[in-house]
């Protein structure tokens, strides 16, 4: 897993062709909505528990 690999996978998931340009106001720390955090924790739990069915 390399830095390029992570970046290209993230761009692909977001259907972006390049890293979004963020302006000043985006730099403030946003509050993470509860439903977003819940979804994130659920995925995290699943990815730590899930085993792909490979050999």
């Amino acid at each position, binding site marked *: 897993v390399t830095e390029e690999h992570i970046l290209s996978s993230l761009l692909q998931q*977001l259907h972006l062709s390049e*890293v*979004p340009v963020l302006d000043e106001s985006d*730099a403030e720390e946003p509050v993470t909505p509860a439903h*977003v955090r819940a979804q994130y924790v659920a*995925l995290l739990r699943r990815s730590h528990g899930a085993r792909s069915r*490979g*050999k």
Partner: protein
Amino acid sequence: RFSQNFREVAGRFLVSEASTRLLVFSMEQRLPPNSELVQAVLRLFQEPVPEAALRRHELLSPHGDRARVTVQWLQVRDDGSNRTFLIDSRPVSIRESGWKAFDVTEAVNFWQQLSRPREPLLLQVSVQREHPGQPASSAHRLVRFASQGPSGPRQGEPQLELHTLDLGEFGAQGNCDPEVPVSEGTRCCRQEMYIDLQGMKWAENWVLEPPGFLAYECVGTCQQPPEALTFKWPLLGPRQCIASEMTSLPMIVSVKEGGRRRLRVVSLPNMRVQKCSCASDGAPVSRKLEP
């Protein structure tokens, strides 16, 4: 089918030119625990054809003296229905006799996927015309294989040969021991590798979670099998330490939608190594058994 000129015509299978035998192999305790099946070979003994029959054949149907032998794996489902999967097929000459080998590795792999160790392996062997539709060739009728006998092993009885590797010796060893530095002699293992996302310039203010993650990597070497296999896969490479199971990485990212900033969860596939194994490049990959 799909032709503008002809209407699709469905046919039914009325006449079979094949002689088909069902071979049953008990598999209980045949595959040692913690082992990997490398190859499975079915050996059938083709009985010699009597001279008189050969001469009669030549007179009656001179069209070639070969037949096609096809091996299929037979699965009997819980509802009593069954389905077959083509495993191996090749022509044999009616003039030859002796042991014939067929690669049935995939059949045993299918059987393993059932996870029913008490169920036998069912192999359906059929002998057909070498080329369907070949005019008046009856060579296939002269091909006979010695069959399994109800009363114990007999001369020439079909044999199932299983080549396995002890994973204790030829496999990976799970996670690396963090106390021991990885060296030439280290056996394939999963080593911790931390990726610091906060250290990546492009991720600033864009990727909010996680700050970093354990990606792991597979390191070390694998022991090579000594034994020459019956069927050589031309492109088979040496056994290497590879990531055999991967898992995804969820993230919380900040995106702009309609001029407003929103937080979203995305999941990047195949980002973290879940398991390392020893495997060879070029080895056939068996089909997954669909329900």
